[in-house]
């Protein structure tokens, strides 16, 4: 397994091996699926759309609908205007969504298709909407594409009427529907009215009913997106995925924002609860205090199994930073923080976090890949890996327990339903981490050392 990976790390400037990111459009597609009755549309060659739908379906085990402009060589030379026009007509005729959310691909970006004017030129049925965002695959990562699609919705739709709706706008980072539910649950417990954009809960975790609905019940509604302009404040969770949306809403509709980390771990969830407390001027309800207290209780109870265990965490920047915060709270020792998404803020935030806990030797790298992380591990092993499916080859090669979290998880079930955010989410992740480490101890120890009570 991965036996050609040499221990010696060599500088690479041309070759990416075993990436820890993918391209923008898949993120845009995921964000668009978080809008009710929305058809994500990929403006480019149909292979992109096919790959993205495939990937989202493999992660969520749910249908991921999206259409494509199906470029051929002709469209690539003469531009994709007529392909988009035909697409919009056919999509409304056949699939009848409320809104089409167009994102571009490296193909349509490279030939310089002007989506804004294409859409202006396209007849749109009454009461229906077409929005777009630019998602060149050669900039940023899928996280960037997710952020860009949110920005597209806000730029096209959100309006400030001058009358506050008393709500807070919640913009989640690139997380699972289960996480989105948990973020909403906390806002409800805090009695703060809100609109969440995007909201893939009820879409990418729709229940089995015996009837297929192309547009399941979930997703942010168009009136709610329009109403984001009247929110009194917005909160973003994860700066890589949400800063753009927060800024757009402020610039367009003067909605002030708070940018928070993804609420993974105790302190990050505390920050969210306190931000809600400030907005709602309300007391934190006992239910939340109870959840928090239970989480702290469990971490204290089990701390001997966590203490100083070394961890490699990889995946999307906001997620990795959140998980790093949690494992530090558990007394663990993050050794490698890796994201493929570019952005030095990842390193800065990571270092700040390590400094708070006096961890000095963590290697933190953005624009990195799993091949390089594997080489580091070969030189200095860790006790645990936390991240998506693509780390499993390393975990096997080096015999390291792996806890799956983040995107993409292609090889397990249920993960998209169980949150890792909030106090409850942290509890679930703590259990996974504890089980991984303790199962390993049970597996590796001598017969006479097998503990009946742990």
């Amino acid at each position: 397994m991965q036996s050609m990976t040499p221990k010696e790390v060599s500088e690479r400037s041309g070759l990416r091996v075993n990436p820890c990111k993918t391209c923008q459009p898949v993120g845009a597609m995921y964000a668009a699926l978080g809008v009710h009755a929305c058809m994500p549309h990929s403006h480019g060659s149909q292979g992109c759309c096919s790959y993205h739908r495939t990937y989202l379906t493999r992660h969520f085990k749910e249908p991921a609908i999206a259409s494509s402009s199906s470029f051929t060589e002709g469209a690539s030379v003469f531009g994709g205007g007529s392909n988009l026009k035909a697409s919009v007509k056919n999509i409304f005729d056949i699939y009848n969504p409320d809104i089409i959310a167009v994102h571009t691909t490296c193909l349509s970006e490279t030939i310089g298709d002007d989506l804004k004017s294409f859409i202006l030129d396209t007849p749109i049925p009454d009461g229906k909407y077409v929005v777009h965002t630019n998602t060149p695959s050669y900039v940023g990562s899928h996280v960037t594409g997710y952020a860009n699609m949110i920005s597209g919705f806000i730029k096209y739709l959100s309006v400030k009427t001058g009358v506050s709706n008393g709500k807070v706008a919640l913009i989640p980072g690139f997380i699972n529907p289960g996480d989105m539910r948990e973020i909403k649950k906390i806002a409800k417990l805090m009695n703060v009215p809100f609109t969440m954009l995007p909201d893939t809960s009820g879409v990418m975790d729709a229940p089995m009913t015996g009837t297929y609905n192309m547009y399941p019940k979930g997703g942010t509604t168009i009136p709610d997106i329009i109403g984001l302009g009247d929110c009194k404040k917005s909160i973003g969770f994860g700066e890589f995925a949400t800063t753009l949306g927060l800024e757009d809403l402020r610039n367009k509709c003067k909605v002030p924002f708070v940018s928070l980390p993804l609420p993974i771990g105790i302190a990050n969830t505390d920050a969210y609860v306190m931000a809600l407390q400030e907005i709602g001027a309300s007391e934190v309800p006992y239910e939340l205090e109870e959840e928090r207290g239970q989480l702290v209780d469990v971490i204290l109870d089990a701390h001997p199994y966590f203490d100083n265990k070394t961890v490699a965490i990889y995946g999307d920047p906001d997620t990795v930073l959140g998980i790093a915060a949690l494992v530090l709270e558990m007394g663990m020792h993050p050794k490698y923080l890796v994201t493929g998404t570019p952005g030095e803020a990842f390193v800065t935030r990571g270092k700040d976090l390590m400094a708070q806990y006096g961890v000095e030797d963590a290697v933190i790298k953005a624009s990195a890949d799993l091949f390089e992380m594997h080489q580091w591990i070969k030189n200095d092993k860790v006790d645990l890996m936390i991240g998506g499916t693509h780390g499993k080859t390393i975990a096997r090669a080096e015999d390291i327990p792996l806890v799956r979290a983040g995107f993409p998880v292609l090889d397990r079930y249920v993960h998209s339903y169980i949150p890792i955010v909030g106090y409850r989410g942290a509890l679930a992740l703590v259990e996974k981490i504890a089980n991984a480490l303790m199962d390993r101890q049970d597996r590796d120890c001598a017969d006479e050392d097998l503990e009946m009570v742990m």
Partner: protein
Amino acid sequence: MDAKGRVLDKYNARVYKNRKEHVLVKATGDQPQVIAANTRVIPGIMTHRGCCYAGCKGVVLAPIKDVAVITHGPIGCGFYSWGTRRNKARPGEDGKNFVEYCLSTDMQEADIVFGGEKKLRQAIKETVEIFDPGMIMVCSTCPVGLIGDDIHAIAAEAEELYNRPVMAFSCEGYKGVSQSGGHHIANNGLIKRVLGTGSGTRIKHAINILGEYNIGGDGWEIGRILKKCGYHVVSVMTGDGSYKEMQEAHTAELNIVQCHRSINYIAEMLKTKFGTDWIKVNFVGAESTAQSLRDMALYFGDQELIDRTEEVIAEEMEEVAADMEYYRTRLKGKTAALYVGGSRAHHYQLLLQDFGIDTILAGYEFAHRDDYEGRDLTAEIKEDADSKNIESITVSPDPEKYHLRLTPEQFEELKTKIPLDTYPGMIRDMKDGAVIVDDLNHFETEEFLKLLKPDIFFSGIKDKYVAQKGGTLSRQLHSYDYSGPYAGFKGAVNFGRDVTMGIYTPAWGFVTPPWKHTPTLVGTYGGDF
């Protein structure tokens, strides 16, 4: 109105005009039927097709385990085609297995603006330094063709510099109308630079297996059976394949073709270049496997081989008989719809027949007309602008390696008995009244499932959960839902087991909550608490 009419009726005029040519109802009698295929998708229609890159890199080239395939482009294409197709491979003699790795130039904005050639050169250099592969292939993605990076010149330069073959494939996603164009481009490259470039001589009862990608270990199971019969497998194209083995492809006496669509160009060109005959085989289904083994033995006409083949068939059939019979009792009378590939929609009908399951709808994703109608087409396939964009190469007989095994008379005689240098297509094997749909899209999938109500829908991951959410079991025939192998005699049992568990899994019984059937509001009489 028939099923076709009822589904297509809902389209607007332009879409209807196009789609009606892609949908057929199998007519009674032997009258040949014509279907439109391999034409471009209507924009906005939710097709399940992929692109040229997916066909070239993803399908044909990636399974070659000892070649470092570098994707030249932004990161997505390389990432999506990394480890997701289940083309299993074990390291070969050189200990290398690139199937586990994803190599990409991860082009950034500056590379698009100023050109990506410099980065590609550097990437090849680093590939050589880190992995030292015997052969390198470069596959381009959409923007590469648009900005004009000359990957072929860079490959030639690197070949000289690093003293090993470096090949380039211009398989940009926008070329052609589906994955199919990519298969062709990959076939062209392999025939030009790899196949039959070795120095070996003909080997008795030696074969190449073409169009077998070792999904779920199918190729290994087929190889096991063939070896048991006494064949020498020179190379597999391309599942668990090795470029070193493919270089010796000319030493085979016969090429057997499993997936016609993706590899028929190579089969044809190997015939022209080396004189090697090919036959269409199908190792999906126990009966089909037996038939294919008999066809192969008949081609060689060697009594010892024919006898040994019968022994193997009897032995293997005996081994699976009880299991096959058990699953047949569980599955007989069920109906199936299939939408997959360029060959599987045909192959799996024959496996389903082993269990008494009728196919009521079948369609290919990226096939051409010959995959439906057979290679002896009644009407010539007209080349359109899209198909002309895919290079069609011609080869000539190799002066030293060309050899015809059969005399023209023997050839003609055998052709009446086995599918020699031909493929009769899918339609022929379908029952009257069955629906045949080319490039079955999302809308048609939903509608046909509602109308025809098959017990099981075999397809891919994108439509799997669409079917299941609607209450129809769906199994993936691209990935076998991570099971397999499904090929050969034992594979048929695996398949029967998987379909049976899918149909009878208890959770289906819980889809509708009991309170939807049972009145839950119990009436009370006045004063009765």
